[in-house]
Protein backbone atom coordinates (compact mmCIF):
# COMPACT_ATOMS: atom_id res chain seq x y z
CA UNK A 1 0.00 0.00 0.00
CA UNK A 2 1.55 3.27 -1.09
CA UNK A 3 1.07 6.70 0.40
CA UNK A 4 1.74 9.80 -1.72
CA UNK A 5 4.54 12.17 -0.75
CA UNK A 6 1.92 14.71 0.32
CA UNK A 7 0.33 12.19 2.66
CA UNK A 8 3.69 11.29 4.16
CA UNK A 9 4.51 14.98 4.56
CA UNK A 10 1.24 15.72 6.35
CA UNK A 11 1.78 12.65 8.46
CA UNK A 12 5.31 13.46 9.59
CA UNK A 13 4.75 17.23 9.80
CA UNK A 14 1.08 17.56 10.64
CA UNK A 15 -0.34 21.09 10.63
CA UNK A 16 -2.50 22.43 13.45
CA UNK A 17 -2.01 19.63 15.97
CA UNK A 18 -3.17 20.44 19.46
CA UNK A 19 -6.09 21.83 21.38
CA UNK A 20 -7.85 25.20 21.70
CA UNK A 21 -8.61 25.83 25.38
CA UNK A 22 -11.22 28.48 24.53
CA UNK A 23 -12.69 26.69 21.54
CA UNK A 24 -16.06 27.81 20.21
CA UNK A 25 -16.81 24.31 18.97
CA UNK A 26 -15.38 20.84 19.54
CA UNK A 27 -16.33 17.79 17.50
CA UNK A 28 -15.20 14.21 17.89
CA UNK A 29 -15.98 11.32 15.52
CA UNK A 30 -14.90 7.75 15.13
CA UNK A 31 -14.47 5.12 17.80
CA UNK A 32 -11.68 3.30 19.62
CA UNK A 33 -13.03 0.04 18.27
CA UNK A 34 -12.64 1.43 14.75
CA UNK A 35 -9.05 2.40 15.38
CA UNK A 36 -9.81 5.91 14.17
CA UNK A 37 -10.77 8.94 16.27
CA UNK A 38 -10.61 12.56 15.19
CA UNK A 39 -11.27 15.54 17.41
CA UNK A 40 -11.43 19.06 15.94
CA UNK A 41 -11.39 22.35 17.87
CA UNK A 42 -12.52 25.55 16.14
CA UNK A 43 -12.57 29.24 16.98
CA UNK A 44 -15.17 31.23 15.10
CA UNK A 45 -15.04 35.00 14.59
CA UNK A 46 -17.68 36.71 12.51
CA UNK A 47 -18.62 33.50 10.75
CA UNK A 48 -14.98 32.75 9.88
CA UNK A 49 -13.02 29.82 11.30
CA UNK A 50 -10.22 31.90 12.74
CA UNK A 51 -8.33 29.04 14.32
CA UNK A 52 -8.45 25.26 14.25
CA UNK A 53 -6.64 22.39 15.90
CA UNK A 54 -6.95 18.64 15.80
CA UNK A 55 -6.04 15.49 17.67
CA UNK A 56 -6.18 12.12 15.97
CA UNK A 57 -5.83 8.50 17.02
CA UNK A 58 -5.38 6.58 13.79
CA UNK A 59 -3.23 5.51 10.90
CA UNK A 60 -1.07 7.56 8.54
CA UNK A 61 -4.05 8.45 6.37
CA UNK A 62 -6.08 9.50 9.42
CA UNK A 63 -3.39 11.92 10.57
CA UNK A 64 -2.77 13.25 7.06
CA UNK A 65 -6.45 13.82 6.26
CA UNK A 66 -6.99 15.58 9.60
CA UNK A 67 -4.01 17.83 8.95
CA UNK A 68 -5.02 18.62 5.37
CA UNK A 69 -8.66 19.24 6.33
CA UNK A 70 -7.66 21.79 8.97
CA UNK A 71 -5.43 23.54 6.44
CA UNK A 72 -8.20 23.69 3.90
CA UNK A 73 -10.75 25.32 6.18
CA UNK A 74 -8.59 27.57 8.37
CA UNK A 75 -9.52 31.19 7.70
CA UNK A 76 -12.56 30.18 5.65
CA UNK A 77 -16.24 30.83 6.35
CA UNK A 78 -18.41 28.26 8.09
CA UNK A 79 -20.37 27.84 4.85
CA UNK A 80 -17.17 27.03 2.97
CA UNK A 81 -16.12 24.64 5.71
CA UNK A 82 -19.46 22.84 5.54
CA UNK A 83 -19.09 22.37 1.81
CA UNK A 84 -15.70 20.71 2.16
CA UNK A 85 -15.99 17.17 0.89
CA UNK A 86 -13.81 14.19 1.65
CA UNK A 87 -13.12 14.04 -2.08
CA UNK A 88 -11.50 17.47 -1.90
CA UNK A 89 -9.31 16.36 0.99
CA UNK A 90 -8.21 13.25 -0.91
CA UNK A 91 -7.43 15.28 -4.03
CA UNK A 92 -5.46 17.80 -2.02
CA UNK A 93 -3.36 14.91 -0.74
CA UNK A 94 -2.74 13.61 -4.28
CA UNK A 95 -4.93 10.62 -3.58
CA UNK A 96 -5.26 7.87 -1.00
CA UNK A 97 -5.17 4.08 -1.35
CA UNK A 98 -8.79 2.86 -1.81
CA UNK A 99 -8.74 1.06 1.54
CA UNK A 100 -7.94 4.42 3.25
CA UNK A 101 -10.63 6.60 1.68
CA UNK A 102 -12.83 6.19 4.75
CA UNK A 103 -10.30 8.20 6.79
CA UNK A 104 -11.06 11.25 4.66
CA UNK A 105 -14.78 10.75 5.33
CA UNK A 106 -13.99 10.89 9.02
CA UNK A 107 -12.17 14.23 8.56
CA UNK A 108 -15.20 15.71 6.81
CA UNK A 109 -17.43 14.47 9.63
CA UNK A 110 -15.14 15.83 12.35
CA UNK A 111 -15.40 19.32 10.87
CA UNK A 112 -19.17 19.05 10.71
CA UNK A 113 -19.25 17.82 14.29
CA UNK A 114 -17.19 20.80 15.47
CA UNK A 115 -19.41 23.26 13.60
CA UNK A 116 -22.48 21.48 14.95
CA UNK A 117 -21.16 21.91 18.47
CA UNK A 118 -20.50 25.61 17.77
CA UNK A 119 -24.14 26.15 16.80
CA UNK A 120 -25.41 24.15 19.76
CA UNK A 121 -23.37 26.35 22.10
CA UNK A 122 -24.97 29.38 20.44
CA UNK A 123 -28.39 27.94 21.20
CA UNK A 124 -29.01 27.32 17.50
CA UNK A 125 -30.26 23.92 16.26
CA UNK A 126 -27.39 22.61 14.08
CA UNK A 127 -29.42 19.98 12.22
CA UNK A 128 -30.90 22.15 9.46
CA UNK A 129 -27.53 23.84 8.86
CA UNK A 130 -25.07 20.96 9.21
CA UNK A 131 -27.30 18.01 8.48
CA UNK A 132 -26.95 14.48 9.80
CA UNK A 133 -23.55 13.15 10.70
CA UNK A 134 -23.69 9.37 10.10
CA UNK A 135 -22.67 6.83 12.73
CA UNK A 136 -18.99 6.07 13.30
CA UNK A 137 -19.36 2.55 11.90
CA UNK A 138 -20.54 4.04 8.62
CA UNK A 139 -17.01 5.25 8.04
CA UNK A 140 -16.12 1.71 7.05
CA UNK A 141 -18.54 1.53 4.16
CA UNK A 142 -16.85 2.83 1.05
Amino acid at each position, binding site marked *: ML*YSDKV*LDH*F*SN*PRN*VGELPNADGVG*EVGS*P*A*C*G*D*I*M*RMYIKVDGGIISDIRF*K*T*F*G*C*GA*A*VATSSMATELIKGRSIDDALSLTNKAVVEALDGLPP*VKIHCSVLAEQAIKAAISDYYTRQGIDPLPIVGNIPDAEAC*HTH
Partner: protein
Amino acid sequence: MNNKRFVYADNAATTKVSPQVLDAMMPWLQEGYGNPSSIYRKGREALQALNKAREQVARGLGAAPGEIFFTSCGSESNNWAIKGVARAMAKRGKKHIITSAFEHHAVLHTVEALKKEGFDITLLPVYENGIVRVADVASAIREDTALVTIMYANNEIGTIQPIAEIGAVCREKGVLFHTDAVQAIGNVEVDVAAQNIDLLSLTGHKIHAPKGVGALYIRKGVPRFPNLIDGGGQEAGRRAGTENVPYIVGLGEAVEIACAGIPQRAAMVRPMRDRLIRELLELPHTRLNGDPEQRLPGNVNISFEGIEGESLLLMLDMNGIAASSGSACTSGSLDPSHVLLAIGLVHEVAHGSLRISINDETTDADVDHILGTVPGVVEKLRDMSPLWESIQAKKAV
Protein backbone atom coordinates in the same frame (compact mmCIF):
# COMPACT_ATOMS: atom_id res chain seq x y z
CA MET B 1 14.83 12.04 11.51
CA ASN B 2 16.37 9.70 8.97
CA ASN B 3 19.37 8.06 10.57
CA LYS B 4 20.16 5.91 7.54
CA ARG B 5 20.75 2.97 9.90
CA PHE B 6 18.49 0.14 8.84
CA VAL B 7 17.29 -2.28 11.51
CA TYR B 8 15.22 -5.20 10.31
CA ALA B 9 13.09 -6.20 13.26
CA ASP B 10 10.40 -8.18 11.46
CA ASN B 11 11.87 -11.68 11.16
CA ALA B 12 8.54 -13.18 12.15
CA ALA B 13 7.17 -11.83 8.88
CA THR B 14 10.02 -13.10 6.71
CA THR B 15 13.79 -13.48 6.71
CA LYS B 16 16.65 -12.78 4.41
CA VAL B 17 18.00 -15.73 2.43
CA SER B 18 21.32 -16.68 4.02
CA PRO B 19 24.53 -16.91 1.97
CA GLN B 20 24.86 -20.65 2.70
CA VAL B 21 21.35 -21.35 1.49
CA LEU B 22 21.89 -19.24 -1.61
CA ASP B 23 25.16 -21.05 -2.37
CA ALA B 24 23.45 -24.43 -1.98
CA MET B 25 20.64 -23.35 -4.32
CA MET B 26 22.62 -21.70 -7.12
CA PRO B 27 23.82 -24.78 -9.05
CA TRP B 28 20.20 -25.93 -9.26
CA LEU B 29 19.17 -22.62 -10.80
CA GLN B 30 21.96 -22.92 -13.36
CA GLU B 31 23.34 -26.20 -14.72
CA GLY B 32 21.29 -28.44 -12.41
CA TYR B 33 17.99 -27.87 -14.21
CA GLY B 34 17.01 -31.48 -14.65
CA ASN B 35 13.54 -32.76 -13.86
CA PRO B 36 13.94 -35.26 -10.98
CA SER B 37 11.53 -37.65 -12.73
CA SER B 38 13.76 -37.92 -15.80
CA ILE B 39 15.75 -41.08 -16.37
CA TYR B 40 18.94 -39.49 -17.69
CA ARG B 41 21.86 -38.23 -15.67
CA LYS B 42 20.70 -34.63 -15.23
CA GLY B 43 17.40 -35.92 -13.89
CA ARG B 44 19.07 -38.38 -11.53
CA GLU B 45 21.31 -35.63 -10.17
CA ALA B 46 18.29 -33.48 -9.44
CA LEU B 47 16.63 -36.44 -7.76
CA GLN B 48 19.67 -36.95 -5.56
CA ALA B 49 19.54 -33.29 -4.53
CA LEU B 50 15.88 -33.75 -3.66
CA ASN B 51 16.64 -36.84 -1.59
CA LYS B 52 19.37 -35.06 0.30
CA ALA B 53 17.05 -32.17 1.12
CA ARG B 54 14.42 -34.62 2.30
CA GLU B 55 16.94 -36.24 4.63
CA GLN B 56 18.00 -32.84 5.98
CA VAL B 57 14.43 -31.87 6.80
CA ALA B 58 13.71 -35.29 8.29
CA ARG B 59 16.78 -35.10 10.53
CA GLY B 60 15.81 -31.63 11.69
CA LEU B 61 12.47 -32.95 12.91
CA GLY B 62 13.60 -36.37 14.13
CA ALA B 63 11.53 -37.99 11.39
CA ALA B 64 12.16 -40.45 8.57
CA PRO B 65 12.72 -39.09 5.04
CA GLY B 66 9.64 -40.94 3.78
CA GLU B 67 7.55 -38.87 6.16
CA ILE B 68 8.54 -35.53 4.59
CA PHE B 69 6.56 -34.03 1.71
CA PHE B 70 7.53 -30.79 0.01
CA THR B 71 4.96 -28.09 -0.62
CA SER B 72 4.99 -24.48 -1.80
CA CYS B 73 4.59 -22.93 1.64
CA GLY B 74 3.28 -23.24 5.18
CA SER B 75 -0.23 -22.29 4.09
CA GLU B 76 -0.33 -25.13 1.60
CA SER B 77 0.94 -27.57 4.22
CA ASN B 78 -1.74 -26.39 6.66
CA ASN B 79 -4.51 -26.58 4.05
CA TRP B 80 -3.48 -30.05 2.91
CA ALA B 81 -3.07 -31.51 6.38
CA ILE B 82 -6.27 -30.12 7.84
CA LYS B 83 -8.59 -30.49 4.86
CA GLY B 84 -7.12 -33.86 3.95
CA VAL B 85 -7.42 -35.38 7.41
CA ALA B 86 -10.86 -33.82 7.89
CA ARG B 87 -12.21 -35.35 4.69
CA ALA B 88 -10.70 -38.74 5.40
CA MET B 89 -12.09 -38.77 8.94
CA ALA B 90 -15.51 -37.55 7.82
CA LYS B 91 -15.86 -40.88 6.04
CA ARG B 92 -15.49 -42.53 9.45
CA GLY B 93 -18.19 -40.28 10.91
CA LYS B 94 -15.73 -37.93 12.58
CA LYS B 95 -16.52 -34.37 11.73
CA HIS B 96 -15.25 -32.42 14.72
CA ILE B 97 -12.05 -30.38 14.67
CA ILE B 98 -10.36 -28.72 17.62
CA THR B 99 -8.06 -25.75 17.19
CA SER B 100 -7.10 -22.59 19.07
CA ALA B 101 -8.57 -19.11 18.85
CA PHE B 102 -5.31 -17.54 17.76
CA GLU B 103 -4.05 -19.77 14.97
CA HIS B 104 -2.62 -18.22 11.83
CA HIS B 105 -5.29 -17.48 9.23
CA ALA B 106 -3.94 -20.35 7.13
CA VAL B 107 -5.40 -22.63 9.81
CA LEU B 108 -8.37 -20.54 10.96
CA HIS B 109 -9.72 -19.81 7.51
CA THR B 110 -9.16 -23.44 6.55
CA VAL B 111 -11.32 -24.68 9.43
CA GLU B 112 -13.86 -21.97 8.63
CA ALA B 113 -14.08 -23.35 5.10
CA LEU B 114 -14.58 -26.83 6.57
CA LYS B 115 -17.28 -25.45 8.86
CA LYS B 116 -19.20 -24.43 5.75
CA GLU B 117 -18.90 -28.06 4.60
CA GLY B 118 -20.59 -29.20 7.77
CA PHE B 119 -17.69 -29.75 10.15
CA ASP B 120 -18.05 -28.80 13.79
CA ILE B 121 -15.22 -26.56 14.99
CA THR B 122 -14.12 -25.93 18.56
CA LEU B 123 -11.89 -22.91 19.16
CA LEU B 124 -9.96 -23.31 22.40
CA PRO B 125 -9.31 -20.19 24.47
CA VAL B 126 -5.75 -18.96 24.90
CA TYR B 127 -6.22 -16.88 28.06
CA GLU B 128 -4.32 -13.76 28.93
CA ASN B 129 -0.93 -15.41 28.71
CA GLY B 130 -1.50 -16.72 25.20
CA ILE B 131 -1.06 -20.39 26.04
CA VAL B 132 -3.51 -23.20 25.32
CA ARG B 133 -4.32 -25.35 28.36
CA VAL B 134 -3.79 -29.07 27.95
CA ALA B 135 -6.85 -29.81 30.13
CA ASP B 136 -8.99 -27.80 27.69
CA VAL B 137 -7.78 -29.98 24.81
CA ALA B 138 -8.55 -33.12 26.78
CA SER B 139 -12.07 -32.04 27.68
CA ALA B 140 -12.83 -30.80 24.18
CA ILE B 141 -12.05 -34.15 22.56
CA ARG B 142 -15.20 -36.10 21.64
CA GLU B 143 -16.04 -39.46 20.08
CA ASP B 144 -16.30 -37.74 16.71
CA THR B 145 -13.14 -35.61 16.89
CA ALA B 146 -11.19 -35.97 13.67
CA LEU B 147 -8.21 -33.77 14.40
CA VAL B 148 -6.61 -31.43 16.88
CA THR B 149 -4.50 -28.68 15.33
CA ILE B 150 -2.57 -26.30 17.59
CA MET B 151 0.26 -24.02 16.49
CA TYR B 152 3.65 -24.68 18.03
CA ALA B 153 4.46 -21.00 18.57
CA ASN B 154 2.23 -18.02 17.88
CA ASN B 155 3.46 -15.70 15.15
CA GLU B 156 2.28 -12.45 16.74
CA ILE B 157 3.00 -12.83 20.44
CA GLY B 158 5.55 -15.63 20.21
CA THR B 159 4.07 -17.79 22.94
CA ILE B 160 5.13 -21.43 22.84
CA GLN B 161 2.40 -24.03 23.33
CA PRO B 162 2.67 -27.23 25.42
CA ILE B 163 2.93 -29.33 22.28
CA ALA B 164 4.36 -32.55 23.74
CA GLU B 165 1.64 -32.67 26.41
CA ILE B 166 -1.13 -31.89 23.93
CA GLY B 167 0.29 -34.57 21.64
CA ALA B 168 0.30 -37.05 24.51
CA VAL B 169 -3.37 -36.38 25.28
CA CYS B 170 -4.29 -36.81 21.62
CA ARG B 171 -2.26 -40.00 21.35
CA GLU B 172 -3.94 -41.39 24.44
CA LYS B 173 -7.40 -40.59 23.10
CA GLY B 174 -6.63 -41.82 19.60
CA VAL B 175 -7.01 -38.44 17.87
CA LEU B 176 -4.66 -37.16 15.21
CA PHE B 177 -2.57 -34.14 16.18
CA HIS B 178 -1.26 -31.54 13.73
CA THR B 179 0.89 -28.56 14.58
CA ASP B 180 1.70 -25.47 12.52
CA ALA B 181 5.37 -25.15 13.42
CA VAL B 182 6.15 -22.35 10.99
CA GLN B 183 7.41 -19.99 13.71
CA ALA B 184 8.92 -22.68 15.92
CA ILE B 185 11.49 -24.32 13.63
CA GLY B 186 14.93 -23.01 14.41
CA ASN B 187 13.76 -21.51 17.68
CA VAL B 188 12.73 -24.55 19.69
CA GLU B 189 13.91 -28.16 19.47
CA VAL B 190 11.32 -30.16 17.58
CA ASP B 191 11.21 -33.94 17.93
CA VAL B 192 8.09 -35.33 16.33
CA ALA B 193 8.37 -38.74 17.98
CA ALA B 194 9.05 -37.52 21.53
CA GLN B 195 6.43 -34.78 21.16
CA ASN B 196 3.69 -37.08 19.87
CA ILE B 197 3.19 -35.10 16.67
CA ASP B 198 1.34 -36.75 13.79
CA LEU B 199 1.51 -33.92 11.27
CA LEU B 200 3.65 -30.78 11.15
CA SER B 201 3.79 -27.78 8.81
CA LEU B 202 6.90 -25.76 8.18
CA THR B 203 8.04 -23.11 5.73
CA GLY B 204 11.36 -21.90 4.36
CA HIS B 205 11.07 -18.16 4.42
CA LYS B 206 11.11 -17.83 8.21
CA ILE B 207 14.44 -19.66 8.40
CA HIS B 208 16.50 -17.92 5.71
CA ALA B 209 15.33 -19.97 2.74
CA PRO B 210 13.37 -18.18 0.00
CA LYS B 211 9.62 -17.65 -0.02
CA GLY B 212 7.72 -20.29 -1.98
CA VAL B 213 8.78 -23.57 -0.38
CA GLY B 214 7.56 -25.51 2.63
CA ALA B 215 7.00 -29.01 3.86
CA LEU B 216 4.48 -31.23 5.61
CA TYR B 217 5.58 -34.02 7.95
CA ILE B 218 3.13 -36.94 8.00
CA ARG B 219 3.88 -39.69 10.52
CA LYS B 220 3.97 -43.11 8.93
CA GLY B 221 1.02 -44.43 10.94
CA VAL B 222 -1.38 -41.65 9.89
CA PRO B 223 -4.15 -43.08 7.69
CA ARG B 224 -3.94 -42.07 4.06
CA PHE B 225 -5.87 -38.84 3.33
CA PRO B 226 -6.74 -37.09 0.05
CA ASN B 227 -4.29 -34.94 -1.89
CA LEU B 228 -4.73 -31.22 -2.20
CA ILE B 229 -2.99 -31.29 -5.56
CA ASP B 230 -3.51 -34.22 -7.91
CA GLY B 231 -1.49 -34.86 -11.03
CA GLY B 232 1.83 -36.58 -11.78
CA GLY B 233 3.22 -38.92 -9.17
CA GLN B 234 5.56 -36.53 -7.38
CA GLU B 235 6.00 -36.75 -3.61
CA ALA B 236 5.04 -40.42 -3.62
CA GLY B 237 1.84 -39.60 -5.44
CA ARG B 238 0.63 -37.29 -2.70
CA ARG B 239 1.49 -33.78 -3.97
CA ALA B 240 1.72 -33.27 -7.70
CA GLY B 241 3.84 -30.72 -9.49
CA THR B 242 7.37 -30.83 -10.84
CA GLU B 243 9.55 -30.44 -7.82
CA ASN B 244 11.03 -27.00 -7.20
CA VAL B 245 14.53 -28.43 -6.90
CA PRO B 246 16.52 -25.26 -6.19
CA TYR B 247 14.08 -24.08 -3.55
CA ILE B 248 13.75 -27.51 -1.96
CA VAL B 249 17.55 -27.72 -1.81
CA GLY B 250 17.46 -24.30 -0.12
CA LEU B 251 14.87 -25.51 2.36
CA GLY B 252 16.88 -28.58 3.25
CA GLU B 253 19.98 -26.50 3.84
CA ALA B 254 18.00 -23.94 5.85
CA VAL B 255 16.40 -26.58 8.08
CA GLU B 256 19.75 -28.22 8.74
CA ILE B 257 21.30 -24.89 9.72
CA ALA B 258 18.25 -23.80 11.74
CA CYS B 259 18.00 -26.99 13.76
CA ALA B 260 21.68 -26.96 14.73
CA GLY B 261 22.68 -24.64 17.51
CA ILE B 262 19.21 -23.74 18.75
CA PRO B 263 20.21 -23.35 22.42
CA GLN B 264 23.26 -21.24 21.53
CA ARG B 265 21.28 -18.89 19.29
CA ALA B 266 18.51 -18.60 21.86
CA ALA B 267 21.09 -17.73 24.52
CA MET B 268 22.35 -14.90 22.31
CA VAL B 269 18.96 -13.53 21.38
CA ARG B 270 16.99 -13.81 24.60
CA PRO B 271 18.97 -11.15 26.50
CA MET B 272 18.37 -8.66 23.70
CA ARG B 273 14.68 -9.54 23.65
CA ASP B 274 14.42 -9.16 27.40
CA ARG B 275 16.24 -5.84 27.31
CA LEU B 276 13.79 -4.54 24.71
CA ILE B 277 10.85 -5.73 26.80
CA ARG B 278 12.23 -4.37 30.05
CA GLU B 279 13.08 -0.92 28.72
CA LEU B 280 9.99 -0.45 26.59
CA LEU B 281 7.77 -1.41 29.53
CA GLU B 282 9.30 1.53 31.41
CA LEU B 283 7.12 3.80 29.28
CA PRO B 284 3.80 4.50 31.00
CA HIS B 285 0.61 2.69 30.02
CA THR B 286 2.28 -0.11 28.11
CA ARG B 287 1.88 -3.87 28.40
CA LEU B 288 3.61 -6.97 27.18
CA ASN B 289 1.36 -9.26 25.18
CA GLY B 290 1.83 -12.95 25.93
CA ASP B 291 3.76 -14.89 28.51
CA PRO B 292 7.23 -13.42 29.09
CA GLU B 293 8.96 -16.80 29.58
CA GLN B 294 7.15 -19.31 27.38
CA ARG B 295 8.03 -17.20 24.43
CA LEU B 296 10.15 -17.33 21.29
CA PRO B 297 13.63 -15.98 22.00
CA GLY B 298 13.26 -13.12 19.52
CA ASN B 299 9.65 -12.02 19.94
CA VAL B 300 8.56 -8.77 21.55
CA ASN B 301 4.94 -7.64 21.38
CA ILE B 302 3.97 -4.57 23.32
CA SER B 303 0.85 -2.41 23.34
CA PHE B 304 1.18 1.34 23.84
CA GLU B 305 -2.13 2.77 24.98
CA GLY B 306 -3.48 5.78 23.16
CA ILE B 307 -1.76 5.37 19.81
CA GLU B 308 -2.35 3.41 16.63
CA GLY B 309 -0.04 0.80 15.15
CA GLU B 310 0.27 1.88 11.53
CA SER B 311 1.30 5.40 12.53
CA LEU B 312 3.86 3.88 14.86
CA LEU B 313 5.27 1.70 12.08
CA LEU B 314 5.42 4.60 9.60
CA MET B 315 7.45 6.67 12.03
CA LEU B 316 9.72 3.74 12.83
CA ASP B 317 10.19 3.21 9.10
CA MET B 318 11.23 6.86 8.74
CA ASN B 319 13.88 6.05 11.31
CA GLY B 320 15.04 2.97 9.44
CA ILE B 321 13.29 0.39 11.64
CA ALA B 322 11.14 -2.34 10.07
CA ALA B 323 8.60 -3.89 12.43
CA SER B 324 4.93 -4.84 12.47
CA SER B 325 1.72 -4.29 14.39
CA GLY B 326 -1.63 -5.84 15.21
CA SER B 327 -3.71 -2.78 14.35
CA ALA B 328 -6.66 -3.06 12.03
CA CYS B 329 -5.04 -0.79 9.48
CA THR B 330 -2.05 -3.08 9.23
CA SER B 331 -4.14 -6.23 9.20
CA GLY B 332 -6.16 -4.86 6.32
CA SER B 333 -9.40 -5.71 8.05
CA LEU B 334 -11.85 -3.79 10.20
CA ASP B 335 -10.77 -5.52 13.38
CA PRO B 336 -7.38 -5.49 15.00
CA SER B 337 -5.43 -8.72 15.30
CA HIS B 338 -7.56 -11.71 16.31
CA VAL B 339 -4.58 -12.91 18.33
CA LEU B 340 -4.59 -9.83 20.54
CA LEU B 341 -8.36 -9.96 20.88
CA ALA B 342 -8.06 -13.64 21.83
CA ILE B 343 -5.78 -12.81 24.77
CA GLY B 344 -8.35 -10.31 25.99
CA LEU B 345 -7.10 -6.93 24.80
CA VAL B 346 -9.79 -4.36 24.09
CA HIS B 347 -9.80 -3.00 20.55
CA GLU B 348 -8.06 0.27 21.19
CA VAL B 349 -5.20 -1.35 23.09
CA ALA B 350 -4.82 -4.00 20.40
CA HIS B 351 -4.65 -1.23 17.79
CA GLY B 352 -1.62 0.22 19.56
CA SER B 353 0.53 -2.89 19.46
CA LEU B 354 4.05 -3.22 18.14
CA ARG B 355 5.72 -6.53 17.25
CA ILE B 356 9.50 -6.60 17.11
CA SER B 357 11.07 -9.90 16.07
CA ILE B 358 14.86 -10.04 16.27
CA ASN B 359 17.24 -12.91 15.56
CA ASP B 360 20.89 -13.85 16.00
CA GLU B 361 21.97 -11.29 13.41
CA THR B 362 20.52 -8.45 15.45
CA THR B 363 23.20 -6.50 17.29
CA ASP B 364 23.24 -4.55 20.54
CA ALA B 365 23.60 -1.40 18.43
CA ASP B 366 20.38 -2.34 16.64
CA VAL B 367 18.65 -2.71 19.99
CA ASP B 368 20.09 0.66 21.05
CA HIS B 369 18.64 2.23 17.93
CA ILE B 370 15.20 0.72 18.56
CA LEU B 371 15.24 1.82 22.19
CA GLY B 372 16.48 5.24 21.16
CA THR B 373 13.65 5.70 18.68
CA VAL B 374 10.47 4.10 20.01
CA PRO B 375 9.94 6.25 23.12
CA GLY B 376 10.18 9.51 21.15
CA VAL B 377 7.81 8.23 18.50
CA VAL B 378 5.32 7.01 21.10
CA GLU B 379 5.48 10.39 22.84
CA LYS B 380 4.88 12.28 19.59
CA LEU B 381 1.88 10.10 18.73
CA ARG B 382 0.47 10.35 22.23
CA ASP B 383 0.71 14.16 22.06
CA MET B 384 -1.39 13.96 18.91
CA SER B 385 -3.92 11.58 20.38
CA PRO B 386 -7.37 12.57 21.72
CA LEU B 387 -7.27 9.50 23.98
CA TRP B 388 -4.04 10.16 25.84
CA GLU B 389 -5.32 12.63 28.41
CA SER B 390 -8.07 10.35 29.70
CA ILE B 391 -5.74 7.34 29.67
CA GLN B 392 -3.31 9.13 31.94
CA ALA B 393 -6.14 9.87 34.34
CA LYS B 394 -6.92 6.15 34.62
CA LYS B 395 -4.94 3.52 36.48
CA ALA B 396 -2.25 1.67 34.50
CA VAL B 397 -3.51 -1.20 32.31
